[in-house]
């Protein structure tokens, strides 16, 4: 219990530092540290799958995105800085925040006891899905429609980002070209780490059916390896009009949707799996979805096209 209290205080201290820091870059570094501590909190809450997702996506990829953004914003400093709100406004904001926190804390105290839970229902049907990890069963079998919609939302965000390209860069390559320096230490690390990272990503995805892990965590690791290779200049971002790129992005949700529609014929409802083939169908969905999500996440971090297509 004292460990939990110490961890809570640490998380709150780092979060307060993120808000109170004067420089934006310092705040982003604090945010990355806060994300990693939050992953620790998730482990204490007996949610290792969420801990993996928070560490990889919430802290890792988001941190990379924000560090890149803060360094770009620092370079193009807008001369007319927005005025900071006055003392009265800050005091009003503080009062509002305290009221909201107090309201949420009251809700936490008033949660019903005994806690309502769906765990028994999840445990009862998990044998039919052939999976061993209940969170994966919820994501891919019980609430598969949520996962399908989530993948589509990722694609929509990517389309939104691509649409922000300048007119002359339309359909070009995202990010600046980084030239490879063969003796640079970053190149060495990328050449060493990327194969290991790809293996780890595939392992996390594969083991997600019986242990903590899954397709989102594995796809995030694969996307991070792509970002590392592109930072070292070993690979260049593809032009966003390339057909193979768009095929990789679309094949995940397309297979998911196809199997979902086939559920009408095979088991009587959308995204219903026939009982004997549930595990096989889930695997057939998961492999292209992992590839699609990895590509989508890497492209989300890369940003809108900035180099005109040749």
């Amino acid at each position, binding site marked *: 219990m004292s460990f939990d209290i110490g961890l809570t205080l640490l998380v709150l201290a780092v979060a307060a530092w993120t808000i109170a820091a004067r420089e934006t870059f310092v705040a982003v570094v604090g945010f990355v540290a806060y994300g990693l501590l939050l992953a620790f909190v998730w482990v204490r809450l007996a949610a290792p799958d969420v801990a993996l997702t928070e560490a990889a996506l919430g802290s890792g990829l988001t941190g990379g995105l924000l560090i890149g953004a803060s360094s770009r914003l620092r370079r193009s400093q807008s001369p007319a800085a927005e005025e900071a709100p006055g003392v009265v406004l*800050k005091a009003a904001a503080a009062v509002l925040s305290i009221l909201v926190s107090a309201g949420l804390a009251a809700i936490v105290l008033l949660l019903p006891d005994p806690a309502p839970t769906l765990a028994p229902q999840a445990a009862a049907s998990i044998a039919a899905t052939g999976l061993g990890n209940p969170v994966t069963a919820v994501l891919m079998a019980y609430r598969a429609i949520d996962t399908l919609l989530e993948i589509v939302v990722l694609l929509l965000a990517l389309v939104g980002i691509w649409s922000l390209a300048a007119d002359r860069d339309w359909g070009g390559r995202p990010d600046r070209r980084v030239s490879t320096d063969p003796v640079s230490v970053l190149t060495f690390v990328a050449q060493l780490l990327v194969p290991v990272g790809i293996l780890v990503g595939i392992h996390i995805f594969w083991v997600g059916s019986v242990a903590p892990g899954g397709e989102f965590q594995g796809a995030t690791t694969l996307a991070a390896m792509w970002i590392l290779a592109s930072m070292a200049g070993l690979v260049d971002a593809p032009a966003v009009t390339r057909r193979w790129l768009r095929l990789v992005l679309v094949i995940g949700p397309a297979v998911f949707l196809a199997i979902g529609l086939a559920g009408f014929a095979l088991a009587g409802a959308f995204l219903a799996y026939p009982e004997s083939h549930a595990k096989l169908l889930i695997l057939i969905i998961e492999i292209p979805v992992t590839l699609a999500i990895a590509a989508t996440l890497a492209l989300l971090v890369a940003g809108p096209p900035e180099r005109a297509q040749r």
Partner: protein
Amino acid sequence: MSAATLYGFCAAVLVGLGLFGLLAHPQPLRKILAFNLIGGGVFLLFGAVARRGAAAGFGGDPVPQALVITGLVVAFAATALAVALLLRLMVAASQAGSRSDG
């Protein structure tokens, strides 16, 4: 007080901190950071509810945990879109500024 309740309080304070940061900082990137803090707090609240629902041999109720995973991914997509919009806004503003000067 159980660990779940303690982390529920932590989540409440995080939401408050994030809300204050959202209102008090004029720079858009700080607002995006504060918004992510609010999101983390809300997900933590889900996690506390999931932990209280531990039953049937699981450490926590798997349904809120799966919802949080979905939420984390969607929050990342939203952050990426917000950052791209912000960078484009900065470029457009600096171009407009230089055009009005020259």
